[in-house]
């Protein structure tokens, strides 16, 4: 019998890594708002963003149950494929040095500079700080919700996916409370590459399931595709790096 971990372990891992990256990005903006404007507005904005998202999930979540499973698998599979391959493509180009790496410290600097250039609102709720913080948490949170729903819903694994995302949120929040700085040392590109690999594999698998493709090896096809995407990505990074070195040497 195939252990359930074949499905739930990659789901937890994908949700944890994907959410971790999103939470790190949200933390950078909220911290920038907090240190340049005020903590109260930053935290109120972040809390309101999270609350709005929670309300949306509660309102729209139950409607997923009424969608036929094959339609849900194909629909979420397509979205996962677009989302995952977008991250994978970008991670390959960044890994090969073709586009610049995502730099949390630089983003923090840019954000604080921008926020400092606008006069503050004193001790009360600062609307700029509130809105910046709200938007960061809402947008990044929306991506977390998408990852959890997309990797979990099609296989009835929303609970393990939520556990992965929750663990990521708590980890980032705890690190944020302790260090009070953007998490610039997180190897974000490698995390994005890993998430891109996982989500792309899930996307292809769910599309196939929804269309009644017959996967050799059943659920183990996900693991095989994870290996295939990962090997392709690492190979492409090496080839593109070599091409770049040769171009620079000329």
């Amino acid at each position: 019998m195939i252990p359930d971990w074949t499905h739930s372990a990659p789901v937890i891992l994908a949700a944890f890594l994907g959410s971790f990256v999103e939470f790190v990005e949200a933390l950078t903006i909220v911290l920038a708002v907090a240190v340049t404007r005020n903590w109260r507005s930053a935290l109120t904005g972040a809390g309101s963003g999270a609350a709005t998202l929670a309300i949306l999930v509660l309102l729209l979540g139950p409607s997923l149950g009424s969608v036929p499973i094959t339609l849900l698998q194909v629909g979420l599979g397509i979205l996962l494929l677009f989302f995952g391959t977008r991250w994978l493509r970008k991670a390959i180009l960044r890994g090969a040095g073709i586009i610049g790496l995502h730099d949390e410290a630089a983003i923090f600097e840019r954000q604080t500079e921008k926020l400092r250039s606008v006069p503050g609102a004193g001790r009360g709720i600062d609307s700029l700080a509130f809105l910046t913080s709200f938007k960061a948490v809402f947008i990044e949170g929306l991506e977390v919700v998408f990852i959890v729903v997309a990797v979990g819903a099609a296989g009835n694994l929303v609970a393990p996916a939520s556990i992965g995302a929750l663990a990521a949120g708590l980890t980032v929040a705890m690190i944020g409370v302790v260090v009070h700085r953007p998490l610039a040392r997180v190897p974000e590109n490698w995390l994005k590459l890993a998430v891109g690999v996982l989500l792309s594999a899930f996307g292809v698998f769910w599309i196939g399931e929804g269309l009644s493709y017959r996967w050799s090896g059943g659920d183990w096809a996900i693991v095989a595709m994870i290996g295939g995407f990962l090997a392709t990505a690492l190979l492409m990074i090496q080839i593109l790096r070599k091409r770049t070195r040769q171009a620079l040497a000329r």
Partner: protein
Amino acid sequence: MMNAIRSAWRELAGLFIEDWRFALAIAVWVVVGIFALPHLLAAVWRGPVFFLGVVAILVENVMRSPRP
């Protein structure tokens, strides 16, 4: 209001699409996977062929990327 909707739409689309050629190629391949592969291949081959198609699109796209 319209600006806010446009901005929200851009943010939402940006989650899934960055390079339009790449997204279009994936979209076309998905359509092939839904409508053509079931008629052309045995069920056991559809998954691997669909997966290899996605890999090929990814490889072609990153190889075509401009040099730094």
